[in-house]
């Protein structure tokens, strides 16, 4: 087999592309630009950490099924972990989003990083919502019967029935978390590949 033939393989091309765009020193850096020194940067990693706790507590709830937390003290505690990690997740994510907006973090070819972040935010809202309507208690009854009118009015209710517990649970524990994990992974990889956006150059401000 010639080296030219190997170089033309899809696998080889992908490996070269990944190695070029995301070399180890970018993927796992040991230094970063000196300007990355503000409390605002904490909220990105806080969002990721809260997301990890959300997923872990969700795994435990999934192990025992959707009714467990109503009849078990431990189950209720795990549900509380799930709830509060979600609250921390959104709190940190919103601050992260506004921080990145005021840094104009899309500059320097980082538009797609911004776009994946916003899509992750929207997917997270849908994930949390399907969780609220899957609780199998009064809250889920009330929220689902209220929310149906908004969703039905757009036509989406035809294929996204918030009164169908089984459908909502599947969206909550399979489809939307999968989307959130993939989008978050892409977002983080883009941040690592492009680096943290540099400050505005004040001379440009004077133009």
């Amino acid at each position, binding site marked *: 087999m010639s080296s030219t033939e190997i170089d033309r393989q899809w696998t080889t091309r992908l490996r070269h592309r990944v190695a070029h765009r995301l070399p180890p020193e970018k993927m796992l850096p040991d230094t970063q*630009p*000196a300007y990355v020194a503000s409390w605002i940067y904490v909220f990105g990693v806080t969002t990721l950490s809260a997301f990890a706790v959300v997923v872990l507590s969700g795994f435990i709830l999934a192990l025992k099924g959707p009714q467990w937390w109503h009849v078990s003290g431990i189950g209720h505690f795990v549900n509380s972990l799930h709830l509060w990690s979600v609250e921390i997740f959104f709190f940190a994510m919103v601050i992260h989003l506004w921080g990145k907006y005021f*840094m104009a973090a899309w500059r320097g070819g980082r538009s797609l990083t911004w776009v994946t972040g916003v899509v992750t935010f929207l997917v997270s809202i849908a994930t*949390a919502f399907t969780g609220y309507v899957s609780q199998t208690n009064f809250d889920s009854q009330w929220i689902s019967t209220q929310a149906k009118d908004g969703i039905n009015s757009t036509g989406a209710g035809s294929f996204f029935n918030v009164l169908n517990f*089984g459908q909502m649970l599947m969206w909550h524990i399979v489809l939307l978390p999968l989307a959130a994990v993939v989008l978050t992974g892409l977002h983080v990889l883009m941040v690592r590949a492009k680096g943290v956006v540099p400050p505005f150059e004040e001379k440009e401000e004077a133009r």
Partner: protein
Amino acid sequence: MSESPDVKVAPWTGPQRPYDIIKEGTIAFVVVAILTIGLALVFSSPDDPQVTVQQWSTKAPIDFAQTALAELNGTSGTAQYGAPYNTASSGQQLGPFTLAKWLGATIPVNTVRDFVVDPLTDQPATPALSSALTQWKGASATQRTAWVDAYTKASGKMTFTNGTVSVPTNAAGPVPVMINTLEQMARSGALDQALVTQSGFYTSNFTLPLLFLADGSYLGDLAQQRHLLGTQWGMMNETGNYPGQAWLWLYTFWYQVPPFSTSANADVQVWGIMMLLSLLLLLVPFIPGLRSIPRWTRVYRLIWRDHYRAQGA
């Protein structure tokens, strides 16, 4: 590529500082995990029990019977809903567009059949019920309407005494037996099961009992006591003193202000606004003006104050 400072930025060639990404991630996870455990231990989480049709019919028997009648005479919220449940109305409009109507009744609900006749048919037969159902099923649509109208006219004087629903009329044919039997069925808990098992033994779809519950006043009254109505910032809240879905504040906000607070098309209008705002947020990097606000407001100088101080800028 645009030369706008809102789009381009020169790659950083300045000084670097040590950064241990693994250590940072580990510390952040541990801190967040401890904070979560602390919040869970101190504040727990809400879990108000679900409402059953049995509970509803026991605590508010007249409301249940009136709702059953509304399902029968076609005046309930579900009976008049339109898509995706039926074709009784064209649904909400966004300008000239009736989005839900375009997709049609994809989750068909016939309130007479699904909430009254089919559950009663599943009941163990009694002579009175069998006779009533035979009479109902054998009657013409005109005759059924006449019976239901007669019952509806007299329903203002409906009473519930000794476990029996009574309405002062002799012109309603089988309707009094049907409503009264449905009430007994609901109070026994059998209707809860009948509404979810119409599609078989295994089911996870609660569309029918939730629609039935929502058509009555009982569920809404409980929600009002818990400050969960739409006029009370609605579904972004949850029971108890918990933050709920605070991130839905902007969505819920529109329902509180005119013209949406009084609009018959508020749901689709608010969804339209939120879709538009979401799209704007998504496309900020590409929208001149919107992407310039950070540079104009100069909030970034607060974020990078050490950098600018070091530059002496």
